[in-house]
């Protein structure tokens, strides 16, 4: 291979594309040709996830100069200055990162946001995700080789179990234990499924992994296959993620070419094939049995459990279903050992967590930090504070079915155990930060609109419960609610939690419960006074305030 003297990394994630990255890429190529540098300089596309304010970004190696935002019109100048004349184009350089807030005792990590620690996203944004050689240079498939040539399946499961890794899809079940269940199931055929149906509103961490480092997932699935005794895997990716789908497709082809997937991997007798399966738009398919139904060509309606997928899953065979983020931890754990992994996070929740931050804050995007940091730290350090004029009123952790917590809980450490004690769910890692202009009634109404739409309709408590609770919230938001409605909500959610078939109906109630627990006075104000304290809800003109009961 001919040596190149420089390399250009251009960000082409969806946000960059929206800001003109494809034209920029074209202009850069044209400029390189104009200076006859096309054979000396390589161009690669990357996912930039750290610098959302300066997209599209162009990074020039070996100097590691970061330019951004770069417009297509700047391309020629950039090539001329930096690559032709050999000097940094100072005026195009990205502004240095503004660090605000207290960095505290957390260790700073060069090149990232303050004190991020990256395991899951280690390669994302640093390699060309379309190029397997890049990934290999950054240790991809090293763990698979080690597993296949130096370890027994029992040892692999043992390491995963000792690492204390918990499922990152939301439930937090011990990954090693799940692997053990599948490995113990007796069957001639088993499957590994990667759950990439990331449909939880506000969650896009898996998209970043899939688009930025697809080989991590392929490697982890092959390792899992070897550990539990499966030779076939499915990646179920939501239909909306077209970009990630194409990237994975390409990555699978490359991995097969290099012999990391297919037959006799690493010259052993281990075979592993991965199918890529796109969904067609259904939130409920994130539930593992609904996902399996969907692969089998049916409506995504969850199955009754037991039997669980670990004994009877896809095509009625024992099946391991793991979330994208969970899997992305696996290669690093096997490369570095369980002890290394436990050094991150808290004793009960080891490792890091990828959070997506959004709402009324200065920075929205993705961060990967150790388990156990607090919401206050997330807002002050990583989100660069609340927007000007905004005061934290509430946060929703974990997507639509996540807990709504008042600002008073912002110092609870975010790990599975502490949150469980505080009655809060960590969920998928979405952090929606809302300021004083957010009306709790309006917010919960929007959430219930989502659930009544996404309920698959199979079981009555969920189908009717989500619809009825939406109607109640709609009435309250129009100033037509009654105090009895709140009792009705209490009863409804108790029944939904008790009788719903799957997690959708069981957790659609979480926002309602939290609303009644933490924000009851605000809800009652809608009912008693017929007015919305934040002025968000449009009260119907005909509304008669309940408090004015004629005497």
């Amino acid at each position, binding site marked *: 291979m001919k040596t190149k003297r420089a390399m250009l990394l251009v960000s082409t994630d969806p946000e960059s594309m929206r800001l003109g990255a494809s034209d920029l890429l074209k202009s850069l190529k044209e400029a390189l040709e104009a200076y006859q540098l096309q054979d000396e300089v390589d161009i690669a596309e990357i996912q930039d996830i750290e610098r959302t304010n300066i997209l599209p970004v162009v990074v020039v190696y070996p100097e590691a100069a970061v330019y951004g935002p770069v417009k297509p019109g700047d391309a020629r100048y950039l090539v001329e200055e930096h690559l032709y004349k050999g000097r940094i184009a100072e005026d195009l350089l990205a502004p240095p990162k503004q660090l605000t807030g207290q960095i505290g005792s957390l260790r700073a990590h060069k090149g990232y946001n303050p004190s991020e620690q990256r395991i899951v996203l280690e390669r994302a944004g640093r390699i060309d995700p379309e190029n397997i050689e890049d990934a290999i240079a950054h240790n991809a498939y090293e763990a698979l080789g080690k597993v296949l040539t130096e370890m027994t399946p029992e040892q692999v499961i043992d390491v995963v179990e000792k690492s204390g890794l918990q499922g990152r899809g939301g439930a937090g079940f011990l990954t090693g234990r799940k692997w053990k269940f599948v490995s113990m199931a007796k069957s001639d055929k088993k499957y590994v499924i990667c759950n990439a149906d990331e449909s939880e509103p506000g969650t896009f961490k898996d998209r970043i992994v899939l688009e930025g480092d697809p080989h991590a997932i392929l490697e982890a699935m092959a390792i899992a296959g070897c550990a539990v005794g499966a030779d076939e895997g499915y990646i179920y990716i939501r*239909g*909306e993620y077209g970009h990630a789908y194409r990237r994975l497709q390409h990555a699978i082809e490359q991995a097969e070419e290099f012999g990391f997937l297919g037959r006799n991997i690493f010259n052993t007798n281990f075979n592993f094939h991965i199918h890529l399966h796109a969904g*067609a738009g259904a939130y409920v398919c994130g539930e593992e049995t609904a996902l399996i139904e969907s692969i089998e060509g049916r409506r*995504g309606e969850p199955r009754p459990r037991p039997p669980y997928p670990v004994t009877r899953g896809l095509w009625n065979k024992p099946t391991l279903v793991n979330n994208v983020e969970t899997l992305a931890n696996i290669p690093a754990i096997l490369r570095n050992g369980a002890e290394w992994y436990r050094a991150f996070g808290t004793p009960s929740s080891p490792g890091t967590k990828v959070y997506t931050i*959004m709402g009324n804050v200065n920075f929205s995007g993705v961060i990967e930090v150790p388990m156990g940091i607090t919401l206050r730290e997330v807002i002050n350090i990583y989100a660069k504070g609340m927007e000007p004029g905004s005061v934290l009123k509430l946060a929703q952790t974990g997507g639509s079915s996540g807990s709504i917590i008042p600002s008073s809980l912002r110092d609870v450490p975010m790990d599975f155990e502490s949150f469980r004690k505080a009655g809060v769910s960590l969920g998928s890692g979405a952090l929606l930060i809302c300021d004083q202009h957010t009306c709790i009634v309006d917010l919960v109404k929007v959430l219930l609109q989502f659930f009544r739409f996404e309920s698959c309709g199979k079981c009555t408590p969920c189908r009717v419960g989500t619809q009825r609770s939406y109607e109640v919230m709609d009435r309250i938001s129009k100033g037509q609610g009654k105090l009895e409605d709140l009792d009705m909500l209490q009863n409804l959610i108790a029944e939904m939690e008790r009788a719903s078939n799957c997690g959708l109906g069981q957790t659609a109630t979480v926002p309602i419960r939290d609303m009644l627990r933490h924000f009851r006075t605000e809800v009652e104000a809608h009912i008693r006074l017929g007015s919305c304290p934040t002025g968000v809800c449009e009260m119907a003109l005909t509304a008669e305030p309940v408090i004015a009961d004629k005497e």
Partner: protein
Amino acid sequence: MYAPAVEREIQEVVQEAIEKHGCRRDAFIPILSEINHALGHIPAEAIREVKAQINHEGNFVSQGQLYELASFYDMLSTQPRGRHVIKFCENAPCHVVGGKAIWDALRETLDLENGATTPDKKWTLVTTSCIGLCSVGPVLLVDDDMYGNVTVEQLPEILGHYE
């Protein structure tokens, strides 16, 4: 007998989809997705055609099973849609950063309710669940094009891109 152009087209689209994805049960949803993408929706004739072609291969599927899928999944439509489909994210992350104003403006500009198509068949307006671009909300999609940090003032320009 010479089949009308539309039917012939449906036959070809279905054939291509089946060649690409196979006839097993796990191919049903990908096949319907391909058809939806090629034709803009899944007409009843396409469902009949899928059944006919799949059942030739020794596999069995009923029209009911296929319709059940086409009517369940959000990205599949059994009804014809406009030349361009606007998908607006109505979930909480987009909502709290000003999504409602965009939604109201869209409905007013196009004079459409959720799920409806303009009389000239140019636009269909639908809401969608989260598409994972929450860091740049409010978000909307026109066909496959993504728009983030959308403001009411930008809407005429965005819509102006489409014929």
